[in-house]
């Protein structure tokens, strides 16, 4: 086919490719000039938003739950924004850096994307966000909680990143405070599974617990695919900790609670887990052993979050036939809302055509203040942290997966 191509079109193609290959430079389109370039959405054409989430694999529930949140948010605005249909392009980031890289590249190759929602996992974010920012596409994180993504050392490649999910630093600190002050534990053991998330939370927990005056008597780890945790639990048992802090994912978490009961020396040790296991899938996997397990997670109660969340959960149940399958749905919902609020500020409308400056949009995102989200008031810091999470401790009351409902199973126990 190349034989039929005239020299001229090759030259055009060359120019197009070279342009795409270079970082965007200052550009004027219609009424808008922006140093990062301008996205034009002609009248009647769709406003395209990308999204990369963990949609397959063992951690698919994280991404699918967030996508459902996005879909409900979309339904609320009837799928349109100022007369433009809103089109969300989903990619799968498989909860891994390579997955994040490939998904981000695929999204970045679409020059009409206004912004991207995602990823679900921190590893995918580390690899994917810089690729999108290379094309000056801002990213609104819906699930990654690693502190590195919004740390002062994150570097200019993360300038285009804000997140509505919380920061693990806060989780570790809250869990340590709760363990030391409320539960009165003076000694604690920790267990992680070698994941980016687990290791990070364990380290912040350990630092905070020591700072509060407690003692870490054992700091252990297992492989993410390990099934027999009894030897490591026996080892922890020799130290007789008052508390075991284990931020594990569903599968390993279920092995843990099932096997912990078989270790006699851990009879008096309290278990504290974190929110990846706040899901009906955990009840399926853990069975009766799930009852009584305490979990640190976001306070998703109507009293804290307002009646909007209750309505949201009702909509979710009617639309998808089941209660939320992980704790990421509200992030998906808030991420789209927050993004459109920023588009409101950054976009210029002329004859039904939207002109969105890329830098203006990113600045608007970072300047978000007091946005009324499902997860509370969202105000973004200069480094991109928007959530000010209110934590709660939950406890499972039944092993029936269909009885899963925040508030009753698990019920709140810290206040």
């Amino acid at each position, binding site marked *: 086919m190349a034989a039929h191509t005239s020299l001229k079109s090759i030259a055009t193609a060359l120019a197009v490719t070279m342009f795409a290959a270079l970082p965007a430079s200052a550009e004027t389109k219609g009424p808008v000039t922006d140093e990062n370039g301008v996205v034009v959405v002609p009248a009647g054409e769709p406003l395209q938003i990308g999204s990369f989430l963990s949609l397959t694999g063992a951690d698919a529930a994280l991404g699918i739950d967030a996508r459902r949140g996005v879909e409900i948010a979309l339904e609320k605005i009837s799928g349109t924004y100022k007369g433009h249909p809103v089109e969300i392009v989903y990619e799968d980031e498989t909860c891994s850096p390579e997955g994040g890289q*490939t998904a981000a590249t695929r999204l*970045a190759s679409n020059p009409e994307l206004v912004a991207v929602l995602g990823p679900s996992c921190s590893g995918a974010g580390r690899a994917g966000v810089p690729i999108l920012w290379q094309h000056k596409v801002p990213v609104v994180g819906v699930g990654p909680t690693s502190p590195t993504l919004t740390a002062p050392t994150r570097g200019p490649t993360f300038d285009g990143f804000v997140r509505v999910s919380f920061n693990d630093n806060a989780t570790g600190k809250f869990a340590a405070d709760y363990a030391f002050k409320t539960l009165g534990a003076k000694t604690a053991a920790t267990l992680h599974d070698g994941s980016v998330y687990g*290791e990070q939370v364990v380290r912040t927990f350990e630092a905070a617990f020591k700072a509060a005056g407690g003692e870490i008597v054992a700091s252990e780890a297992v492989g993410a695919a390990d099934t027999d945790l009894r030897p490591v639990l026996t080892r922890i048992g020799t130290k007789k900790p008052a508390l075991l802090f284990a931020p594990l994912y569903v599968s390993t978490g279920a092995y843990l609670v099932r096997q912990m009961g078989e270790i006699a020396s851990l009879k008096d040790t309290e278990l504290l887990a974190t929110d990846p296991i706040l899901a009906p899938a955990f009840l399926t996997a853990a069975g009766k052993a799930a009852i009584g397990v305490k979990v640190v997670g976001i306070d998703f109660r109507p009293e804290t979050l307002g009646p909007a969340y209750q309505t949201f959960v009702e909509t979710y149940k009617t639309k998808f036939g089941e209660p939320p399958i992980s704790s990421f749905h509200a992030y998906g919902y808030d991420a789209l809302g927050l993004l459109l609020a920023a588009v409101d500020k950054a976009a210029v409308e002329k004859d039904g055509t939207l002109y969105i400056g890329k830098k203006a949009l990113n600045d608007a995102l970072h300047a978000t203040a007091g946005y009324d989200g499902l997860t509370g008031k969202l105000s973004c810091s200069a480094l991109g942290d928007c959530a000010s999470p209110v934590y709660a401790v939950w406890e499972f009351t039944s092993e029936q997966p269909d009885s899963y409902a925040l508030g009753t199973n698990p019920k709140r126990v810290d206040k």
Partner: protein
Amino acid sequence: MMAPDMRGAAPQSLVLKAGIVGGLVGVYVVAVGVFAAFAARPVVAQSVSLGQIMLLSIALAVGWSAADPRQGRSRRLAMAAAAGVLAGLVYAGALLVAREAKLQAMFVALSPAALNTGLFGKAGMAALAAAAIIAGLSALAGGLARQMPAPARRTLLAVGVAILIGALLRDLWISFFSNLLGGRWWVSTIYAGNGLSWIGTAVAVAVGLAWQAFRTLGRREAGKQRTSLAGLVLLLAAAILIPYFTNAFVAQVMLLVGLYALMGTGLNIELGLAGLLDLGFVAFFAIGAYVTALLTADSPLAIAQLSFWEALPIATLCAAAGGFVFGLPVLRVRGDYLALATLGLGEIVRLLVVSDMSAPFIGGAQGIVGIPRPELAGAPMVSQLSLYYLTLALTCLVALAGWRLQHSPIGRAWAAAREDEDVAATLGIDLVQSKLRAYVLGAAFAGVAGALFATTLGSIFPQSFKLDVSINVLALLVVGGLGSLPGVFVGSLILIGLPEFLREFGEYRYLFYGFLLILVMRVRPQGLWPDPLQARSS
């Protein structure tokens, strides 16, 4: 594959077998959830979905295999239709039972919605009748297709494939032609939503016909199949031009393809040339990546601030040294045991990398971030396209080195030792030295790939260095053709590239990956592009 098994069978049992097997295959695709995923993917004008095409092709295959060529013409067709009706009844019957028994609690893909689509939106006898009629007719078509003269059949196949390629690689074509022709005005003419419009379908049919005519003509003129060299040139030209005329995503996928081809070239030295089955290949890939990261990254863990170009040779040497240290003890282990020993070593490396023990030095679970891109003439190579060209250049270099090695005295020593160790030893070839050389060189190539991986990703995590990488490299090598350099590229394109272009089917792409491996090995155990020398000897 079904046909040869049934050659000796009586007509009735042939019909019975084809019908029941076909029906069960239909049930399988619904129960596994492939059908639901495919049904959501339109191919032609929002009216024909990929799911429908899949069910029809199953029925077509049933008719094809039931049309016993030893029978008379009309009897043959009757057999095909009967088998199709039977398959339809088995299929719809099983799905109706599944609906009544509410099996979704056990089999997650059997949701009411999927069953409803699978049963053509009908219930009870109507569903049975619809399935029987549709399957019977398509099976009849399958039987007819088997009677057709070969050129007509080939033309039909070409048209079908053209439509599928046109619809499934939609994004690729849009980006390719909008770069070539400029503008996107034609997109809504050719495509309707995700599928082809009727006009687009007509274009695809025309392309399929043209392709078939081109092939027939080409074959008549050339008189024989194209030579290997011409194919090679074509491959290289495509590798350079296609990402250039498409988009960053294509460049990214081709980058992965190149990376795996690079590793494949390394493993080819070990396995294809020296006959050493190595399943711990990923360990050297990891060494290359981590050394590069530690030498270049803007991170507290870094031990130096070198540029990529300075780090690349060091990383390669470190990987080669790793190959030497591992190779020395394990190379005396024979055959399959070597595979197991190297697999064990590879896993040990991964476990050490992720462990808390090594976290203070190489980051543990948090990996190493902030690895810079390579710089060329003072400017960092930021675009995927430039990184892809870097990968391609290095891959070609390594392939050239591999080719030179293959035809050097060293390569002949490997070949001799591979064919018969005893004879080679009597000829004065030092077997340990010869094998160690292959192992170290293979490891060095993996180190180059690792260095590239680290710099293109910008951050590395231990989860990236799983056994899957070794298995993928082994599979692409064997699928491409052991010992054949172009085979490495073809294998990589098919096993690494194709699944990436089919990302929209999520995890089902790995199911097809499995079926593809089985199919290629059953149909062409010598690989898709075998080395002429090795093909002769085996």
